[in-house]
């Protein structure tokens, strides 16, 4: 380790003065990533917890990795399945193959790299401009963004969406800790509205390229389960496949079981708010049950079909699980008060499922629901804070009497 430290020590003078000064935040970020600094407590408490923002963020990344690796396999699996190269009799036994992994990895790893370069580039520029250290928040956003994208998303679109998200979603509000919207979802929303043909429909979820320049001509239907529901009122996928994740969808969202695993890890470590996750579950179940009750009175059979599906379908199809565990729990854009988190989470589940069912143009209601609740979170907090203030005033009045 000494020689790594020596490299940092030797290069430090070059970036603390002179032309390379703009690189200091990068140097500092890399150095503190290699070595947790030996800074000592100067004021206040003399002992401190081992946790810091880096550990918090890496914990979220640990929680994301199973779903990511699964997504890599799944993109390969869906690809080869669409091309008809798989033996239909043994189905998912051909899932964890090297070919699937390599196909997915060659697609997805460049997406991750591009996202990190684009996002951290903006972060480092602002760190230099505003003279602060690079915040670690983007470590997670940079992994979340590719995981919410379809497999064939062009890299330059990902880069532009990421830059937009960091600039408009975060830095204009004052940087990490100040943003109102979840940066990863801002990137996805930008991509969704800027490049709709790459982000929605039936064609984008599975790569059907045969070779360079050649695509599968007659349409293999690559619709997601929610897409099918919106058009036909039923799906060809089983809830069990969806729970395992062997269905088309955004890269990271398909495997409910691995997302659940990540969620359990986040709750167990105390990093993710169980209140938000749990109340989002309650919200999703509530609206599903309401839909089940009113389904018979719908006019079209498609709508009747979509409304009458049991609640657990909603939990395993689409991005409810991924959004609830990894997006809704972003502490900066969520409600900040503990009571507020209950309300915030509930409406994310409630509205997310509602949008996905009522508006077939947006089968992914979760994204919009979370962005909407991000905007509403300060209002929720306001009422919780007012409640606290009122209790205090009431006590004062009682004591005056």
């Amino acid at each position, binding site marked *: 380790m000494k020689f790594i430290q020596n490299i940092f020590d030797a290069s430090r003078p070059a970036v603390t003065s002179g032309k390379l000064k703009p690189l200091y935040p990068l140097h500092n970020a890399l150095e503190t990533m290699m070595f947790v600094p030996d*800074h*000592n407590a100067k004021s*206040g*408490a003399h002992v401190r917890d081992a946790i810091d923002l880096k550990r918090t963020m890496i914990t979220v990344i640990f929680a994301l990795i199973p779903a990511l690796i699964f997504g890599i396999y799944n993109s390969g699996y869906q690809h080869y399945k669409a091309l008809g190269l798989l033996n239909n009799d043994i189905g998912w036994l051909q899932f964890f193959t090297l070919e699937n992994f390599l196909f997915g990895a060659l697609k997805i790893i460049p997406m991750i790299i591009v996202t990190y370069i684009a996002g951290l580039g903006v972060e480092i520029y602002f760190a230099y401009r505003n003279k602060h250290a690079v*915040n670690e*928040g983007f470590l997670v956003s940079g992994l979340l963004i590719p995981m919410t994208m379809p497999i064939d998303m062009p890299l330059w679109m990902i880069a532009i969406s990421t830059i937009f998200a960091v600039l408009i979603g975060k830095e204009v509000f004052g940087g990490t800790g100040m943003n109102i919207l979840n940066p990863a979802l801002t990137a996805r929303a930008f991509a969704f509205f800027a490049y709709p043909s790459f982000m929605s429909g039936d064609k984008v979820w599975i790569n059907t390229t045969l070779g360079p320049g050649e695509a599968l001509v007659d349409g293999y239907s690559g619709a997601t389960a929610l897409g099918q529901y919106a058009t036909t009122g039923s799906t060809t996928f089983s809830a069990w496949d969806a729970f395992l994740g062997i269905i088309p969808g955004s890269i990271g969202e398909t495997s409910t079981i691995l997302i659940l695993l990540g969620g359990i890890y986040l709750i167990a470590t105390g990093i993710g708010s169980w209140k938000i996750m749990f109340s989002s579950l309650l919200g999703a179940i509530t609206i599903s049950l309401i839909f089940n009750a009113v389904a018979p009175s719908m006019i079209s059979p498609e709508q009747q079909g979509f409304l009458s599906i049991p609640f657990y379908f909603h939990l395993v199809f689409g991005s409810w699980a991924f959004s609830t565990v990894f997006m809704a729990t972003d502490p900066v854009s*969520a409600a900040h008060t503990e009571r507020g988190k209950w309300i915030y989470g509930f409406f994310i589940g409630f509205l997310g499922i509602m949008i996905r069912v009522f508006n077939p143009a947006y089968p992914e209601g979760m994204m919009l629901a979370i962005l909407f609740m991000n905007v509403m979170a300060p209002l929720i907090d306001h009422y919780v804070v007012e409640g606290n203030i009122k209790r205090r005033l009431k006590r004062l009045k009682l004591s005056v009497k």
Partner: protein
Amino acid sequence: MSKKYTIRKGLNLPLFGEPIKELKPSKFVSNYAIRPSEFIGLKPKLAVKVGDKVKAGQAILFDKKNERIKIPSPISGEISAIQRGPKRRLDQIVIRANEKCEYLNFGVKTALKKDEIKNKLLESGAWTLLKMRPYGCLANPDDSPKAIFINGMGSDPFASKPGFSLKGKEELFSRGLEVLKQLSDRIILSIAQDENSDLLNNANDIEIHRFSGPHPSGNTSVHISRVAPLNKGEVIWTIAAQDVAIIGKLFELGELHLDRTIAAGGSGMKNPQYYEVRGGQSMKTFFSEETNKGNYRFISGSVLSGESIGKEGYIGLLAKQVSVIPEGENTDFLGWVLPGFDKYSFSKAYFSWLFPNRKYNLTTKLNGEERAFVVTGQYDKVFPFDILPNQLLKSIWAEDIEKMEELGIYEIIPEDFALCEVICTSKQPLQEMVRKGLDILYNEMN
């Protein structure tokens, strides 16, 4: 009237070096010092100059805002130095002690009236043992407090337990209680659930409440919040049980004896135990004899909110404990990525949670760098008040006085945020922020 309260939110840090209940007697110490910074709200004005002879109990400093408030000398001797810092700020006043301590006598007349008692406390400097809420600063003798809270417990790491440190001083404690009873109609003593010392034998006509649970169950703010919450415009005085005995002795003998039985803990102590120490004394000999060799931080007070005084420093005039813990020295290669089986964390983000009963030799390391507030809901787990900690801190940050008041800044002092500061992911200096908020408010109100 006696009630039991269980505090659920909080945290006892699993540290090595808990003092055992054995007492080591005092030694003669030749140097003493007064540090004005120890007295919150004091605008110090010197009452002595270098070379002056003083007796124990004689005023060394006045408060410029209220000259009745005096900071007493803990010992008799000669003023040997007056040290100043930047902008001629008074840093410390050093006193070289006589072999035999002479005490100024303040009389032993009994059956005093309220004003006479106040005057005697002010004259002898024992008044500085009382603090007021809000602000946690020196009490103002012109106020009439709605209650006086006596803190008879200690839940800080390595805290001195009054049941042990007041052993043999029970009579003086009762005498002190009698005095305090003259100052307020409501005297509230809070003690630990398992305290069964003789302290309580003569504690008549006062409210006694028992508290249990993890730290901060022993913080006075917690006791106030449960027993008699402080509202805007009200004043409460607070005092430590050990200091009640000092007041008792003042009225018994007419002399101010600032010696206490303090707890000394931490992994830097050879034998963590109790010692007889006088407030303000030089700790040079103490530390060189009683601590291990190595790079340590020497703290007057607790590891949560005490003051680092250095190996040759002086213990605070009001301190009830000292703590000696190692300074952090090395960087930590990839410390944030590795499992961290040996890293203490209140969260379970490091795998040390697999060993819940383990104790740690925590250093003064920050374990990270300061960052913006990101994580929410973290402080609430160790903050047993009906106060929204993040929102209150943000209102302080924004210097929004009205919001600070509304969100309950009157009900807390910096030490109540110590645990939040320990577990803070963003390594924000919370106690400093709270002090700043209270100062802003104090300056606005006075």
